[in-house]
């Protein structure tokens, strides 16, 4: 059986789900569960076997105050509304197993999560820059990121030069 209710029941029975770490309702999906980060690849395989397609992977910065990245995987079927959301609370220091072997669509999504947040995915064949120029060192979508280093392509080079440190106010000339 591959209805959303059946799949999440199987996820619960196999012990892949965890209780919600925080009260944060998810609307727009028929079912949503919190999945243990180490078990996400197993869960994805179940969705693949049940003919669900990989809809999206979103990373949310929850470092302040929880110290984790929230990864939201959504799966759907080609038919009646069947969206299932699997939410993973991934600690900053441990890599998440990759699901790109199960779903080809996860490949680029995981690369994007890495380059914008710094989440690492264990077993990913090519975890490198996708949208940003190669060699970019900052992680733009982190909440702590506010401005990039100045470059020749932005206005910071046109800022007026700071007055010299020993400038005195002219005494009424």
């Amino acid at each position, binding site marked *: 059986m591959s209805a959303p209710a059946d799949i999440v029941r199987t996820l619960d029975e196999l012990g892949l789900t965890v209780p919600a770490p925080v009260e944060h309702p998810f609307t727009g999906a028929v079912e949503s569960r919190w999945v243990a980060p180490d078990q996400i690849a197993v869960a994805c395989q179940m969705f693949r076997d049940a003919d669900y397609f990989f809809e999206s992977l979103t990373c949310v910065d929850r470092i302040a105050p929880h110290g984790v990245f929230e990864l939201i995987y959504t799966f759907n079927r080609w038919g009646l509304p069947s969206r299932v959301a699997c939410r993973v609370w991934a600690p900053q220091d441990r890599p998440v197993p990759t699901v790109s072997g199960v779903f080809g669509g996860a490949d680029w999504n995981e690369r994007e999560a890495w380059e914008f947040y710094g989440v690492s995915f264990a077993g990913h064949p090519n975890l490198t820059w996708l949208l940003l120029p190669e060699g970019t060192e900052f992680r733009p979508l982190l909440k702590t990121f506010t401005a990039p280093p100045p470059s020749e392509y*932005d206005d910071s080079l046109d800022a007026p030069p700071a007055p010299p440190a020993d400038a005195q106010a002219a005494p009424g000339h």
Partner: protein
Amino acid sequence: MADGGVPVGLASPTDQELERLAEEASPFLRLAKAEDVFNLARANSLWGLTFGLACCAIEMMAAGAARYDLDRFGVFFRPSPRQADLMILAGTISRKMAPVIKTLWDQMPEPKWAISMGGCTISGGPFKYPGEYAISEGAEKFMPIDVHVPGCPPRPEALIAGILKLEEKIKQGRRFERAG
């Protein structure tokens, strides 16, 4: 003419005499410097590089399509930079793309001109905000631009006005006489 010889009688005309000659001959003949003639040819036959980056590219293509026809102004799009003399920068310039654009600009042979179309290429447009990390705040940061066409996106008529302005700049005169 040997030094010390008798002058033959044909001296080089001064500028004033040239102007008088041009005026008298004008119903039948136009006199101009060779460079002016070349500029006339260059202005009336600007071959643009097909180079759309984002939304403005669609309005540029609409300007080249049937209703707003750029071909009647001589503008004809070429895919290779070696065969183009006009680069219309249409769309936001991301920092990953800026070196590519500079390379293409360098590959175009002289004389060449650039029109920066849309707010994004003039100053960053709607994507400029404090802390932006992804775009280049205007094409003038890294290459010379001749005409700016503002808009988001500018209408095809606005792009045509920009091209006519560039023609005016090249040949120092207008294609269509100003009314009144």
